[in-house]
């Protein structure tokens, strides 16, 4: 092979042309076609689901539907007003619990103990908790809060539902805070500590603000996911046919309607009007969640700039 230069390599021009029927090219095209097909299959459900919800749900949306109470079985007039309020309330309770605790935990992991055994243990626990099925969060809150009536004697309640959702949100918030803070350059931290700022001031005034957008992005995503959860609410928040006066203790320490539980209950009932309400509620819920998702993407886009 070392003597190749003695011969003229280009006596005949090299054949570089693309050979469509060469085995490797056929294989390559077949595989490309296959994965294109898979990608197509992966987006088809979204199009079908969104399409159906838009068609079935949006046609039923009216002011009455958004503001009235669900009808008793068999009646054909009513709406999902109390469930919309309920979803907002239960999700807000969850966020009020999970965001402070999660951000605090994330600050501990990223700012106080990056690699200590306790931090490693908490990180592991966070991952494990993130993998716990959502129904188990419901079972847990049912077993601790609902049956014990520890919340001022109330059994099923909006707060209990919010706590179950908070269990699911917590790992998301901790992880995004931890990772968001890790992205803050070490120099910034040193600069603050170097002028004599305490840890507390450094975290509160320098690093947390610097990591605000990634954390907010994660929190919004966590809220979006919680808003659509059903399983943890079925036997914690339960359901209600009535308005909950959510500004009074009576309202939040009693069972409450939510969109997701309404969808579940009404979809499996044999009454057509109730099925239609389930579609309408699906529409409202999906719009809410997709809006939150797009908002979090927008936030992430802002952060990238």
């Amino acid at each position, binding site marked *: 092979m*070392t003597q190749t*230069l003695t011969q003229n390599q280009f006596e005949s021009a090299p054949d*570089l042309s*693309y050979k469509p029927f060469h085995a490797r090219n056929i294989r390559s095209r077949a595989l490309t076609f296959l994965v294109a097909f898979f990608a197509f299959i992966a987006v088809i459900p979204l199009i079908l689901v969104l399409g159906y919800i838009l068609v079935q749900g949006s046609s039923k949306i009216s002011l009455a539907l958004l503001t009235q109470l669900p009808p008793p079985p068999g009646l054909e007039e009513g709406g999902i007003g109390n469930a919309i309020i309920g979803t907002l309330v239960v999700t807000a309770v969850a966020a009020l619990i999970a965001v402070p605790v999660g951000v605090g935990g994330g600050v501990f992991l990223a700012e106080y103990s990056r690699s200590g055994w306790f931090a490693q243990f908490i990180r592991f626990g966070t991952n494990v908790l993130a993998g716990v099925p959502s129904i188990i969060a419901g079972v847990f809150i049912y077993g601790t809060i609902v049956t014990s009536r520890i919340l001022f004697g109330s059994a099923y309640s909006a707060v209990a539902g919010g706590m179950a959702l908070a269990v699911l949100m917590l790992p998301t918030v901790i992880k995004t805070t931890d990772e968001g803070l890790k992205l803050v350059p070490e120099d910034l931290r040193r600069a603050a500590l170097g002028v004599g700022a305490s840890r507390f001031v450094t975290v509160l005034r320098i690093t947390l603000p610097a990591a605000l957008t990634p954390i907010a992005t994660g929190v919004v995503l966590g809220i979006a996911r919680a808003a659509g959860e059903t399983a943890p609410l079925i036997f914690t928040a339960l359901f209600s046919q009535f308005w909950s006066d959510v500004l009074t203790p009576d309202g939040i320490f009693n069972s409450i309607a939510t969109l997701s539980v309404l969808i579940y209950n009404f979809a499996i009932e044999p009454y057509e009007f109730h099925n239609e309400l389930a579609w309408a509620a699906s529409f409202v819920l999906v719009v809410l969640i997709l809006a939150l998702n797009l908002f979090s993407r927008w936030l992430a886009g802002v952060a990238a700039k």
Partner: protein
Amino acid sequence: MTTLTASQTSENQNAVSALSLQNVTISYGNSEAVKNVYCEIPRGKVTALIGPSGCGKSTVLRSLNRMNDLIDGCSLKGSILFGGIDLYGAKIDPVEVRRRIGMVFQQPNPFPKSIYENIAFGARINGYSGDFDELVERSLRQAAVWDECKDKLNESGYSLSGGQQQRLCIARTIAIQPEIILMDEPCSALDPISTLKIEETMHELKKSFTIVIVTHNMQQAVRVSDMTAFFNAEAVEGGTGKVGYLVEFNDTEKIFNAPQQQATLDYVSGRFG
């Protein structure tokens, strides 16, 4: 060695050009990176591409075996002839091109496989049917890294030092027996001793291959190359960035001792900027 002297004494370089760039302009998206390059890269010699960073040396080098195809939005105008065939012709298969024009990159990039497999992989997909053990040994010897590797052929390529990894990558390229080897600053990530070893390797390799090497180290260009192309970049009116162009292409000796252009003189004598 006879072949070398034969080609060195050959008067007419163009008759044996390995690659011929004809009015090549390469753009990333809408901005041109290098413009109007004409250049005849001679066969059986080492050609060095030098110039300030950002002037498009890597861009030109990657265009020679269509590695630029992998970059989104990169496009080329003009033509690059390889044995009389335009590499950018309509029917050309870039995979076939890369099998004949191999490339060694700036950062050593062994596959996450064993040393043996690193060499055998390329040869196998190129349809090599000979004795693989022998091929591996021969390639590693040619790249002057056999002694370091022979006892750990089954270990990961990453278990080698940076300089050894780079020579493994050279061996991997040799193993597919290309006609031309492209090297993009192959020593810039290495220490001086590894650099020296790779330069020695290149002196061996040029007996068998045409080599095109990008280097920012002018001493290295002097030490290893027969021909040198000096690229520079200048701002264009209306444009936002700089556009690279070929200033001068000649025997290395002439470029460094008697350049025709003032810019070349300034650059090689360190009076640049």
